């Protein structure tokens, strides 16, 4: 008689912490392959041309980096909140509010020179994104209101608010009735690497990752964040102010998502438009989780997901539906979450022979 059983591990396996994410990606690709084959495509060819599309040309690489920028910044924001067990699902909304804030500066003060304009857009974008998160953080800190629901709901508010603006008062009169604002002035756009669309936002992302690493492991505030994330009881015992930290960390988280929004309007689209984010804020959650909330890993995983998105665009010419990429992303998260169990439990097959 054989059977399969679970046995709890005494300590999480560090080996599995690496294997599980990698295996999850492989399994997700496998699942995607079944789906592709069932709909009449050769999965091997599709994946190969996705890879080529994302990394096979200078254009492809540059597009992958462009997509990775908002993912990195937003995901760094998500990961710092998650580290304190604050489930900020609202990066998408905070992204929109950041984009809105930056656009407001660019459209209201068109004559400002770049050295005033860009810092102003940067600050207003961050502050609006941060405040949008604080809206959910205050009830959480004061009365324990579940932030998953509030941050998620606030996404819809933010997205619809931007829609209202681009379909209404801010619509570009020369825009052939498309839902977008007038283009920014030259001063309101971020510099790019010549010949590509890669913009200064990449520097924001990398700086943010370095700063976050320093904050978390080298400052008193970061120490408090790590302790609170592990044990609120111990943090209270040590005299840490939990409420204040919830609000501060949510602000930082939202500010980063807002910065992602600012760098997207200022660096890529150069205007605010309907659907400015194709779900960066949600993908950021998957990335943060896959990266185990570690800033350096977030950067790496963001490139993977950006590659998936760009590769997905490139295979649409083969007739592969655009939703394939969303499906792959979802499958990766599914397998990562499912695989977590392997880090805590050991699977064993068959009965152990009872020796005397």
């Amino acid at each position: 008689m054989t059977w399969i059983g679970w046995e709890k591990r005494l300590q999480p396996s560090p080996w599995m912490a690496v294997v599980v994410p990698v295996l999850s990606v492989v399994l997700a690709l496998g699942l995607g392959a079944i789906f592709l084959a069932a709909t009449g495509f050769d999965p091997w060819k599709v994946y190969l041309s996705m890879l080529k599309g994302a990394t096979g040309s200078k254009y492809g690489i540059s597009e992958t980096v462009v997509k990775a920028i908002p993912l990195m910044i937003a995901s760094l924001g998500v990961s710092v909140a998650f580290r304190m067990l604050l489930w900020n699902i609202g990066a998408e909304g905070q992204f929109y509010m950041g984009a809105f804030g930056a656009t407001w500066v660019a459209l209201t003060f068109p004559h400002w020179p770049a050295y005033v304009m860009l810092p102003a857009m940067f600050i207003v974008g961050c502050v609006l994104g941060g405040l949008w998160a604080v809206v959910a953080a205050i009830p959480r800190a004061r009365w324990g209101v579940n932030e998953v629901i509030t941050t998620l709901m606030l996404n819809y508010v933010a997205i619809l608010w931007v829609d209202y603006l681009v379909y209404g008062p801010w619509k570009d009169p020369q825009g052939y009735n498309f839902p977008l604002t007038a283009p920014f002035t030259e001063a309101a756009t971020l510099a790019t690497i010549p010949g590509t669309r890669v913009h200064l936002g990449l520097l924001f992302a990398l700086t943010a990752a370095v700063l976050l690493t320093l904050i978390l492991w080298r400052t008193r505030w970061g120490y408090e964040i790590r302790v609170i994330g592990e044990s609120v009881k111990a943090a209270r015992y040590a005299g840490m102010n939990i409420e204040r930290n919830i609000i501060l960390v949510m602000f930082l988280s939202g500010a980063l998502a807002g910065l992602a929004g600012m760098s997207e309007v200022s660096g890529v689209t150069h205007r605010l438009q309907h659907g400015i984010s194709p779900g960066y804020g949600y993908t950021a959650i998957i990335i943060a989780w896959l990266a185990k909330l570690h800033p350096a890993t977030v950067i790496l995983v963001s490139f993977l997901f950006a590659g998936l998105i760009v590769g997905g665009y490139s295979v649409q010419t083969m007739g592969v539906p655009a939703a394939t990429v969303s499906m792959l992303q979802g499958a990766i998260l599914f397998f990562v979450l499912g695989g977590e169990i392997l880090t805590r439990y050991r699977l064993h097959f068959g009965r152990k022979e009872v020796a005397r």
Partner: protein
Amino acid sequence: MSAPLVEMRGIRKVFPGVVANDNVNLTVRAGEIHALLGENGAGKSTLMSILTGLYRPDAGEIYIEGRKVNFRSPRDAIEAGIGMVHQHFRLVSPFTVTENVALGLKGGLRLNLNRLAVEIAEVSRKYGLQVDPQARIWQLSVGEQQRVEIIKLLYRKARVLILDEPTAVLTPQEARDLYSTLKKMAAEGCAVIFITHKLQEVMEAADSITILRGGKTVATVKKEETDEKELARMMVGRDVIWQGEKPKRSPGDTVLQIKGLRALNDKGLPALKGIELSVASGEILGIAGVAGNGQRELVEVIAGLRPCLEGTVTVGGENLGQCDPCRVIQCGVGFVPEDRLGMGLVPNLGAVDNLLLKEYRDPRWGRVLMDRRAARRWAYELVERFQVKMAGLDAPVKLMSGGNLQRLLLAREISGHPRLLLAVYPSRGLDVGATETVHRLLLEQRAAGTAILLISEDLEELFRLADRIAVMYEGEIMGVVPTEEADLEDIGLMMAGAKKMEVSA
């Protein structure tokens, strides 16, 4: 004689790096109360986890009424009639007694709670386990909750009942009630196994005793054929030398002064009803009492973790009534909490980060960026000085043993040179060696002039360490007596709320 109800033969269980059970044998007959005696880490819990199907043995066999069994899950063990009352009760507190008994029952989707309630009432009458089937768990005292756990097992027709340190939460009087219930169950043909390390309890309640030490069976003896001294020797593996008199000291100035203190518990009910206490420098004030009579709330108020409604708490003349743990720490109050791994220490962080918990605000670690290397050196010195054994300074502290955890916690709290040290159940769950270390450290602190408030449920420990003993019952101080004049029987009565002395704090 018929086959024994439970027989475990040659049980072996290895965890990474530890042989928890090595060729352990245990035989329990129907109708007997069997004590499983051993220090912490002797392998008692592992053995019982194997018997209840929680772990699978690496080697060895289990027979129930002579038939070989192979438990793959706790469910198999329950079906074989084996049930366990854990030290931490597995009850759902917003549910009623009946609903808790219903949890996990087999059968279809239909559930007749009324009939179940009647059946529960029957079981509780039969065994003298008084409890209201409609009461909600959170309304019950700890002793009543324990009865619910036992009823749960009896209702499931368990024939082997395992109790893990059942008297730890009871007054001596409640414990006597429990023993008589156990005797009734044994008379009905059940077998009762209880895990303990209290010798006096074994002599009072058990019929036979199996002693474990270092994962091995030392012996199984009948109660009539042994005595406490022999049991102690078998349990510890050497003659136990009870520490001699602690050095006399004349207490110094009053450090902690509590006047008319009132506070609420987590449910918003009064937990402290006008506490008056004082502790002087170089003095250990012991607080005796059954857990849950306000001890936790008392230390939490002092530590600034719980607001006080009325009254004052002063440490060295400074008033600390504002519920501000940060200020309390700066006032020089060290706190060894009951919940070591969770409140006192952060399980997933390493030793360095854990030692920094009270010290991280200190400017000596640098103004903006903290000097991790200096912190590491400092942590290393503390770990060496207090002889904490660990895999590494960065390994999560949850991997450490109980004794080492407590050493680490004490290292941090003592290294801050506290004026007042709050120690809550400091030796609970520790083995004899680690307990000795804790006691030595506390006495050293006393000699250094620290005022110590020691909360313990172990009267022996209080008699050994404390200069004065106060007894708490339902949020009140029933009396404070100098240890030399204290009488065990009196203290027991005060713990049960049956006696009150004039308090002269």
